[in-house]
């Protein structure tokens, strides 16, 4: 597949998958979504998926061969948690963690 075909297919698939999550409740009626299993998944799945994604990408962005293995990603991740619990401002938390990670990566002291 060429680059142009790939990005076009990629965007189409992403758009369809995202739209699917939004349209499903309007297509399948209320009574189906009242099912206790659906309500159970609705309650727990989003949180579980976020934790899963955070863990997978935290692990893959860490340098485990460094003299302090994983310090780059783990310290930046801890800063995000601390700032977010303190101020509760998503952009501030994301910016501070990313800047710390970039500083560690670019200074090369690890």
């Amino acid at each position, binding site marked *: 597949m060429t680059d142009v075909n790939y990005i076009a297919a990629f965007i189409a*698939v992403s758009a369809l*998958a995202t739209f699917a999550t939004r349209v499903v409740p309007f297509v399948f009626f209320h009574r189906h*979504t009242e099912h206790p299993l659906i309500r159970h998944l609705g309650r727990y799945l989003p*949180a579980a998926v976020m934790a899963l994604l955070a863990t997978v990408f935290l692990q893959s962005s860490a340098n485990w061969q460094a003299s302090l293995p994983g310090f780059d990603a783990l310290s930046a991740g801890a800063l995000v948690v601390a700032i977010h619990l303190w101020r509760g401002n998503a952009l501030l938390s*994301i910016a501070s963690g990313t800047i710390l990670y970039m500083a560690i990566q670019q200074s090369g002291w690890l």
Partner: protein
Amino acid sequence: MNQTVFKLTLPILFGYLPLGTAFGVLFATQLDYAWWIAPLMGLVIYAGAGQILAVSLLAANAGLLEVAVAMFVLNARHLFYGLSLLGQFQGAGWRKAYLIFGLTDETYSLLTSRPRTGNKANEQQLDFRITAFNQLYWVVGCALGGLLGEMVAFNSTGIEFALVALFIVLTIEQFKALGDSFPIWSGALAAGLAMLLVPPAHQLIAGIAIVTLVLLLHYRHHRNALIKTEASHD
């Protein structure tokens, strides 16, 4: 009417412009595609976390099936948004498809929390404009970021950590809303298990499969426990 809509959506403007810009910068600095693909994605996909995840999927040249599964599951919370808007969008005609398409976290919270009058047609037109204004802010942010990332030369090494930071923030927000840490631990442990057992390219799907299974077992256990307590009351 547009002035009312602008006032209502001002908080979203302050959220979407910088986040859209962050996505655009990430897109342009991490990938070799043209900058305008970033606003194009904002136009047709229109999902914050989804588009930021898309950058790392594109960088990894991920297979389309994996892209579909990852996008669907990441946005799975939207599955439950529509429920509270079923009646409100009823009879919205041609506007309904766009109202559903534009149901992001922020638009959802605005549409479900704003005061309403009895005039349904009027309210639906207002909902429609709110949705369109919000998407406009997002697309403009994506375009600004895309241009900025392409034109301004700076050392962007490590900027991809924004994705991790975003997921950490969303996890904390989910935990706050839920008040239950069980799904957080399940998700993290499922990720750990997937990382031990399968190569990096398939860890996301494997982790999602594991955690879905865990939640199904959790449901069965809960249901049985509920039936038992009910039986002991008889």
